[in-house]
């Protein structure tokens, strides 16, 4: 029991520090709060691994992961380019574009709405572990098949959100368009899409992380000898857990960056939405 004391002490200390910092709402303190939160987790992890002598082949300590990260930067960079830049990003862009176009088609035609949406639900629910082998069979071993998996994975969440968003314009705003006899394209560009943006970005944000998962996991089903998924599965086989976690660290950093960029664009694009304006009370 007493062995848990340092863990509890660190935890409470960090909690208090953050609560105090959060009262000063500046850019610097916001960053600090997030970093302290993360640092706390890492310290707790390190302490737990050391105090309870967890075998490194089960869970390596952050210090070991850091060392492995530093020692393998070249490999990590190659894998990052292969999996994230080529696989995830390409797939996400294609998937998002396809989903938005489909959402517009669905929104335009009630026929398609009734016909495509249920089937869209269905396609989206195809589990990635089932599609990945098939897509690897169809699109080959390289990043193209990973991008295809990502396309399938991100499509549905973006579709659902965009369809909801296109329905979000309020009646008076639509009536206005009607009184101007705005052609479909105009009301799409100038009303429906802007009003859909908060929802669309909801979908885009959720899928940033799905894209990474998809690209990495698809590599488990066949890949060239590089890529994060490849490295993770082979490193597990060699029990090189620090390398596995270093790859996971890269994935987490890349994912947070990706998400952050999308969130930033969201802020710029949907500045007018109440959730983006300063909150009162």
């Amino acid at each position, binding site marked *: 029991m007493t062995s848990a004391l340092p863990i509890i002490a660190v935890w409470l200390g960090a909690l208090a520090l953050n609560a105090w910092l*959060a009262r000063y709402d500046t850019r610097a303190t916001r960053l600090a709060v997030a970093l302290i939160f993360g640092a706390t987790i890492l310290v707790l992890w390190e302490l737990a691994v050391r105090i309870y002598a967890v075998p490194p082949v089960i869970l390596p300590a952050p210090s070991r992961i850091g060392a492995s990260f530093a020692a393998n930067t070249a490999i990590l960079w190659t894998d990052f380019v292969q999996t994230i830049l080529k696989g995830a990003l390409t797939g996400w862009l294609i998937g998002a574009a396809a989903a938005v176009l489909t959402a517009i088609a669905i929104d335009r035609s009630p026929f398609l709405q009734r*016909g495509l949406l249920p089937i869209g639900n269905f396609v989206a*629910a195809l589990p990635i572990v089932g599609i990945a082998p098939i897509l690897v069979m169809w699109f080959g071993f390289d990043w193209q098949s990973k991008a295809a998996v990502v396309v399938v994975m991100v499509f549905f969440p973006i579709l659902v959100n965009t369809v909801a968003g296109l329905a979000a314009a309020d009646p008076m705003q*639509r009536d206005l368009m009607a009184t101007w006899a705005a052609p479909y394209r105009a009301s799409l560009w100038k009303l429906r899409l802007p009003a859909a943006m908060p929802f669309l970005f909801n979908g885009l944000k959720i899928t940033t*992380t799905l894209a990474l998962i998809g690209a990495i996991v698809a590599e488990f089903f066949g890949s060239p000898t590089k890529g994060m998924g490849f490295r*993770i599965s082979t490193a597990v086989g060699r029990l090189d857990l620090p390398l596995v976690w270093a790859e*996971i660290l890269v994935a987490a950093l890349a994912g947070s960056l990706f998400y952050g960029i999308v969130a930033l664009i969201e802020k710029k694009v949907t500045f007018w939405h109440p959730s983006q*304006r300063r909150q*009162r009370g």
Partner: protein
Amino acid sequence: MTEAAADDGANPTLRGGLPVLTVLLAIVAVWYGAAIWMNAPWVRDQAARAETVLTAGDLMRQTLTLERPVLPAPHQVAAGLWEGVAGQKITSKRSLVWHGWITLSATLAGFAIGTLAGIALAVGIVHNRAMDQSVMPWAVASQTVPILAIAPMVIVVMASAGITGLLPKAIIAAWLSFFPVLVGMVKGLRTPDAMQLDLMHSWNASRAQVFWRLRMPSSLPFLFASLKVAIAAALVGTIVGELPAGATAGLGARLLSGSYYGQTVQIWSALFAAAILAAVLVMLIGALERLTLRRMGLA
């Protein structure tokens, strides 16, 4: 849109299954075409190896009846599904119903845990500045951890702690499904406009009251959109969790064992079973959504 909705109500065929049927037919047609096209190289190769000459009819017939096609034809998948669902006692290990049930129970458990966690975190984020600033980046980071990589570790660690069966799978499912709920709810809970919040403020409503009477109701459209994504994610999580669980039971195990042996028809049947399951779940949430919104006068 109002016009479209009006047309729609006026035309009874649109309310029925006609659109779904049409789109479905189109898909099946494309699918058959693709099956012939994708399986043809193999059939031609085989013919060349056997040094026989193929007529167009032979080619077509053979591409649609291969035992391990690149892309199975719709009727092959349908037969596989029928065989898996109706051709077995539902307690049989070859029954898709049995495997489906195992997957479903873990999915629902994971979905419940994930949704609760997502909502709880979102509530925390909206109400607590320290959480607002610290949780989100790490929630994002948590989702970028490739689950397929850590799922075996989760299973192994939990198994060594004596936890096996449904719970480890449910936890992986929850891991994947809490995130869409979190993102959607944070947005949804922040949706009320300034005037609505000001009113609450002028009544000195407590945070709980603002939450239950304003934030929660106005977040529902976002919540339901997220729940649909989350339940699909939970299913994926469960299936992923079923792989390293020793690939013994559940649709995930079915999928994978189909993969080992290149049993495309079995893979596709399991895939469809999973997708049907998910589609049904998503539709249930959709129905719940309509019901709730109608009761709230919003639909």
